[in-house]
């Protein structure tokens, strides 16, 4: 039997995408649509004293100007399903919590008419003082109340880290900082809200159709089953589309009032104030080691900021709990409110930021001890999860180190910083580890096998660009025994069986077991049917499904086509759920990887160019070698942006985002990205889930910034502890 799982199959939706036939949310063919444009605050803190909408209302084509004064009252449930602890501003009152908050929406016949009229609304504010930077609220830090939605503790410790740190013969004691960053998916957030009677269909770019319809229903105070969310194609989300942000509900509110479908697409500038961000962090790392480099004590104390109206914490220290072997370890998280929007999940939230700090500190320790950085990590290799005190379900980090180092040629590295050259440029080689937890949630799927021999899989998951369509088809094809071309995948619709948010790299691990279970059930039904029909007298064990037909194992020339077997029936269907059991009580489940990077630094001008990159990763079973590789490359590029260029500039007085566009918010361009060599190490892990997959979306981004910072240090002897590493920081650092 042919297996397609693992094969480097092209995306099954590739043709639709490259021909433009794939419809993204704003492109859904909805008739009679009216266009909405948001009005946002221009101060960070205070109240709306007066809002004058008269000119806008008179403007040609305007159907509605909705502000807190005339917006329908929502009955108080302003929370998001995905982000507990948060109260969204949904035009319910005159309070301003941050600069760029929605304060109104304007609906008109055309986008242009709406855009123009929105500018005619004038607002007078009673402005209060505002604080918008972490550095301004260090006196307001507090223990988080909703850390990880209650799933983890903000503080943890083992042994006696404080005392042992003091006693340690070798110490690193440094603070690392990361700036505000924005996700910047290429496709903007977009909604079309369509009411039919009391039922609402919302087309919107969402990483969680199943969560979204509940959030919207909660906001509107109607029952879940009255709301359907559809999101067939998503042009990236990176966490920004995991929650259902206020503009979605606002579009639905407006559509109900104008009694027409309403389309609302955020502008790029609005995407810097409407859908979360990675908050600024300050991380204090203390590493104490013996003279051989073995960690004796480790503390990772992180600060980040959140909004005044809700708590979201960047969980920087969680990777530290498990990354290295260390008997005395402490982690803490503190948070303080600023007059900013609320932060959110951004690709590897906590891991990407936290591992920048930990992996930089490890490099500083290696330098202090004159030990090779890779050797230092091997000396501190964690043979088990010392936080949970559990064995790993699988861990191939050593192989990642070995194969990555070999491919890179790490053993030719001169240890002394500033000792390698390429012409006048200083060459630096840096490395870092990567880790990401295996997350899995309950999911279900329906499979329908039709008499024409095609299978349709339905599941309320979504493909955020990672390849979910394709891996579902592969898993179903193998489990039923069909050629993959005969599988149609229907996802991105909350009417389908429930699946979790595409976040935490959990989609493959959660959804494919359900698809697999439903598909196996179909296969069984088919075989059972054969034992009562075409192959009466044979037992199920004697039969197999190969290439879309039931065959007799002992004589594969004896085949029965699906159409024949289903004679008279439309289809076979099966709906199955799959969920994690208590396996996490027995095993600790994480993916791991290793980054190796070469940078060239101009020592006088401070220019850093990444010249070479090797990343080796082990994340369980690889479902599709091509989409997995794409995920890894994408993650590394995302990490290069974090390392070298990305930072959201806020005016420190007004909280205004100053570089809210992709000309001035610098994501890497081609010239910033070298060839990236990807090494995938397959693991057989029977414990994580039935398919043995761990998830690939976020892992490769974790550690990139640390590896680059370490390479910059190796090139120049300058340690940059505050991302991004731009020329001015290198110039300022002695």
């Amino acid at each position, binding site marked *: 039997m042919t297996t397609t799982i693992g094969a480097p199959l092209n995306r099954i939706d590739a043709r639709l995408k490259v021909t433009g036939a794939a419809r993204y949310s704003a492109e859904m063919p909805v008739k009679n649509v009216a266009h909405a444009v948001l009005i946002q605050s221009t101060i960070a803190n205070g109240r709306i004293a007066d809002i004058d909408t008269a000119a806008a209302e008179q403007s040609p084509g305007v159907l509605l100007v909705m502000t807190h004064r005339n917006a329908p009252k929502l009955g108080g449930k302003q929370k998001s399903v995905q982000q507990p602890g948060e109260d969204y501003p949904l035009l319910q009152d005159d309070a301003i919590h941050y600069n760029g908050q929605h304060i109104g929406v304007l609906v008109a016949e055309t986008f242009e008419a709406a855009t123009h009229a929105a500018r005619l609304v004038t607002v007078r504010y009673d402005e209060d003082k505002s604080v918008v930077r972490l550095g301004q609220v260090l006196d307001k830090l507090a223990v988080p109340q909703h850390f990880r939605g209650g799933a983890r503790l903000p503080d943890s410790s083992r042994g006696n880290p404080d005392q042992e740190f003091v006693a340690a013969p070798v110490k690193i004691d440094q603070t690392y900082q990361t700036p505000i960053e924005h996700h910047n998916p290429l496709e903007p957030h977009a909604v079309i809200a369509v009411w039919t009677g009391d039922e609402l269909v919302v087309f919107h770019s969402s990483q969680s159709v199943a969560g979204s319809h509940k959030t919207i229903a909660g906001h509107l105070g109607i029952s879940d089953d009255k709301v359907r969310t559809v999101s067939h194609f998503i042009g990236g989300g990176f966490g920004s589309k995991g929650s259902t942000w206020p503009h979605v509900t606002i579009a639905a509110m407006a559509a109900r009032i104008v009694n027409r479908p309403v389309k609302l697409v955020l502008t790029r500038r609005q995407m810097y104030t409407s859908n979360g961000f990675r908050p600024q962090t300050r991380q204090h790392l203390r590493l104490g080691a013996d003279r051989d480099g073995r960690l004796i004590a480790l503390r990772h104390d992180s600060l980040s900021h959140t909004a005044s109206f809700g708590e979201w914490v960047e969980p920087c220290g969680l990777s530290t709990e498990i990354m290295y072997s260390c008997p005395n370890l402490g982690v803490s998280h503190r948070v303080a409110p600023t007059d900013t929007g609320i932060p959110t999940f951004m690709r590897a939230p906590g891991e990407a930021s936290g591992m920048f700090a930990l992996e930089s500190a490890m490099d500083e320790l290696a330098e202090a001890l004159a030990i090779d950085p890779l050797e230092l990590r091997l000396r501190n290799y964690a043979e088990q999860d010392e936080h949970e005190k559990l064995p790993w379900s699988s861990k191939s980090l050593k192989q990642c180190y070995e194969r990555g180092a070999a491919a890179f040629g790490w053993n030719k590295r001169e240890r002394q910083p500033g000792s390698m050259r390429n012409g006048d440029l200083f060459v630096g080689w840096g490395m870092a580890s990567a880790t990401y937890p295996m997350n899995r949630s309950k999911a279900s799927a329906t499979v329908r096998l039709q008499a024409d021999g095609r299978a349709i899989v339905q599941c309320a998951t979504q493909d955020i660009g990672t390849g979910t369509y394709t891996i579902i088809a592969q898993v179903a094809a193998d489990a039923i025994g069909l050629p993959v071309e005969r599988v149609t995948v229907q996802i991105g619709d909350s009417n389908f069986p429930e699946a979790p948010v595409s976040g935490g790299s959990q989609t493959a691990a959660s959804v494919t077991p359900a698809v697999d279970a439903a598909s196996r059930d179909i296969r069984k039904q088919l075989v059972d049917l054969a034992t009562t029909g075409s192959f009466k007298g044979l037992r199920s064990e004697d039969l197999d499904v190969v290439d879309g037909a039931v065959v007799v194992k002992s004589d594969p020339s004896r085949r029965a086509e699906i159409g024949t077997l289903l004679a008279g029936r439309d289809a076979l269907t099966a709906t199955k759920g799959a969920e994690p059991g208590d396996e996490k009580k027995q095993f600790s489940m994480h993916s791991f990887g290793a980054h190796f990077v070469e940078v060239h630094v101009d020592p*006088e001008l401070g220019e850093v160019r990444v010249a070479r990159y090797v990343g080796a990763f082990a994340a369980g079973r690889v479902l599709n070698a091509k989409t997995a590789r794409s995920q890894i490359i994408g993650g590394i590029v995302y990490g290069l942006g974090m390392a070298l260029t990305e930072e959201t500039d806020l005016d420190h007085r007004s909280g205004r985002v100053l570089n809210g566009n992709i000309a001035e918010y610098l994501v890497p361009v081609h010239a*910033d990205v070298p060839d990236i060599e990807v090494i995938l190490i397959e693991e057989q892990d029977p414990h994580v889930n039935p398919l043995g997959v761990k998830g690939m979306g976020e892992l490769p981004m974790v550690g990139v910034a640390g590896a680059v910072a370490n390479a910059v240090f190796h090139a120049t002897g300058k340690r940059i502890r505050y991302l991004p590493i731009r020329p001015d920081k290198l110039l300022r650092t002695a």
Partner: protein
Amino acid sequence: MYPFTYVRGDDRQAAVALAAEPGTEFLAGGTDMLQLLKDEVRRPRRLVEITSLSGMSEISSGPQGLRLGALARMADVADHPAVRDEYPVISQALLASASPQVRNMATIGGNLLQRTRCAYFRDTAMPCNRREPGSGCSAIDGENRLHAVLGGSDHCIATHASDLAVALVACDAVVVVTGPSGEQRIKLEDLHLLPGETPEKETVLQPGDLITAVEVPPLAFARRSLYRKVRDRASFEFALAAAAVALDIDGGTIRQARVALGGVGTKPWRSHEAEKALTGAKLETASFEKAAAAALAAARPLHQNGFKIILAQRTLIRALLTVGA
């Protein structure tokens, strides 16, 4: 975007006459203007599109030097053999600007008149003297890492963003202008104004003045010229600091030099001080260092952009070292 009327100019004089009326502006490639319109930083009542005006796109070179039509595209000028061979500094400055897509649309005239990237200027929610005279400068006490260290005033410190203008000003370029009162030739060095007390006045041009061409006089030693730009990412980004240099070398001595700086001035910054320091000096690092110090002697740092003083000096030294080698 504010509503405006749109006129396609197909006759130069008519276009000039239309543009002389209040509230009218030219539209060339639109790569800057469209953004400014969308952000309502500019609110013209009428736009006169000039890309179909004849005789303004040619690129020619001869004994009298180089002539670039104002509508010539950045990409075409960068690739022109005479530009590449005789004025490498111009070609390099263009290739270091924006992206291929932008360069395919954008024109030489539009490039010289592009507005500053100062974020406060481009956000109508923020005070800005240049956009709204008298409203205050948000940058002086605000986020000014990218702002100018040369030529600023208490009213404005916005960096002039063009790379091309820096290369051209080093080459003594002249701008040919047709206006309501006829044709005039303005030295590029005199085209842009320092902000002083009136940052809203960006150039000496009057309403209706149309740039038709840029002329670069013959400069034999421009064959030995170079543009070096330092920026926050490898491509598609404006300069933190840039240097345009040309050296006329006689054995081990510098006979003449041309120096201009980008990314650090409120206008394309010709440095006669650096040129003076280099004239007659030995071709050696010490001379370059003196010139760089002279070029930045008048620099005034703010709280975030002080690094530019050192960076600009080093960029200039690097450019001189490279071109002098």
